[in-house]
């Protein structure tokens, strides 16, 4: 049955960017992910929907190699993440953006230094002028050009999220993993973040996995929705498909 499903996904859409097969991850007796399958197609916004504590963060941390899966494989751009050397993994990570739920801005550095940090460490040949231009472009993308000399502690929740988004985008990743980008923000700011996500998606032609349990966010950003339940990909489809679903587990999310 699993195989049938995978084959069907292959037919439905172009090139795969991320393929996850039979992913298992436990912490002691807590089996968080249990034979989880997923496929992210090129240029697609895929939302992974799931209740708090269902293992959504664990899933994307496995994709980027912060957590090591117990079983199963994760293929990103044709590379099996588990089999890469330290150096190869670092190189792969420059192609993947990761927006932390907590933003994870470096709080001892200014906004500018936060954005420069990944640039300076990967693109050594850049001149100061090029670095400045890229930092300004990244800040303009999120409409926060004036904050470059501020410290992260001085930013409001919404601003910090936008700066974190700018930092995530600065190496021009091809894939972006968003961990609950709108959780904890007021509805107006949440809508702003969503429109930024869509704007950057169009501008840089990225593929994204967006983790969320905010139905507005799901509705506004998703090309496709996958529902994570009991460590498995319970079902998937367009937002409208799931909204119409008669399945009681799916319905819970739309109440």
């Amino acid at each position: 049955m699993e195989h049938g499903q995978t084959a069907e996904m292959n037919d439905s859409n172009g090139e795969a960017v991320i393929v996850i097969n039979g992913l298992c991850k436990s912490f002691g007796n807590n089996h968080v992910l249990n034979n989880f399958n997923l496929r992210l197609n090129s240029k697609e916004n895929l939302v992974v929907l799931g209740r708090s504590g269902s293992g959504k963060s664990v899933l994307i941390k496995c994709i980027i190699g912060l957590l090591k899966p117990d079983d199963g494989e994760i293929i990103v751009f044709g590379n099996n993440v588990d089999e890469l050397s330290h150096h190869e993994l670092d190189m792969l990570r420059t192609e993947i953006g990761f927006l932390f739920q907590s933003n994870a801005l470096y709080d001892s550095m200014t906004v500018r230094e936060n954005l420069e940090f990944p640039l300076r460490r990967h693109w050594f040949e850049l001149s100061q002028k090029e670095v400045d231009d890229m930092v300004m472009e990244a800040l303009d993308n999120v409409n926060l050009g004036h904050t470059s000399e501020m410290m992260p502690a001085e930013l409001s929740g919404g601003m910090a999220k936008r700066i974190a988004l700018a930092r995530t985008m600065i190496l021009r990743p091809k894939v972006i993993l968003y961990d609950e980008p709108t959780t904890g923000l007021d509805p107006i700011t949440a809508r702003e973040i969503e429109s930024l996500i869509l704007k950057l998606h169009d501008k840089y032609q990225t593929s994204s996995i967006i983790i969320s349990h905010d139905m507005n966010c799901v509705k506004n950003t998703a090309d496709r929705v996958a529902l994570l339940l009991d460590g498995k990909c319970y079902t998937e489809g367009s937002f409208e498909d799931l909204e119409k679903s008669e399945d009681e587990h799916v319905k819970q999310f739309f109440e």
Partner: protein
Amino acid sequence: MDIVAKTRDFMSQTGYMARFTGQLFTLGTKPPYEFKEFLVQCYIIGYRSLPLVALTGFIMGLVLTMQLRPSLVYYGVQSQLPVMVGIAIVREIGPVITALIFAGKIGSSIGAELGSMKVTEQIDAMEVSGTNPYKYLVATRVVAGTLMLPVLTMLADAISLFGAYIGVNISAVTSFKLFFMQILRTLEFGDVLPAFIKTFFFGFAVSIVGCYKGYNSNKGTRGVGNSANSAVVLSSVFIFIIDLLAVQVTAILGLN
């Protein structure tokens, strides 16, 4: 928790810490090196600790002299005061007190800094941006700490001896030259070298313990506080253990 579980916990902690330290020699020795961050850390760890180390060093020398004086007067050997104070400071008090101050200031600040970076996912953020956080954060701090403490100790010794000179002059007049000539004539290679070498180990212990505790901090404010606190406690204990080992080793090598 019963004694068996406690022992097992202690053993596994020791194992984790040994592995953490081991990474310094496997991962940390591979280029590229984080030279710029190393210099920043030398500045923070070394230069910024100077005022504190100087102040405590000065008081230590002054007080030690004033405390020793009555006993020496009692035995009629007060002329030996500079020599006694000099040896005490250079061999033992200077290195150990400076290391303890260093543990309180640097060990705790490394523990708290890395701890809060850990719990706010900044260390993970560094890792996913393709920078090895162990090399960037840990290796630089440990090398800087190991190299800066000996320098700080030498300065503390010098200032401390100056404090001792003032202490001697409170109740008797000695010339600056005579005071230092007396000390330098009695100090031997075997007094200075072991004391100097052990300060590298002190610096290493304080900074690696701080990094380890911070890096393995638990979530929450309590977690960060705990890691700063246990960094100081554990590194202070290590300082005394290393001191004990050092005195044994120097005795075996016949340097005493």
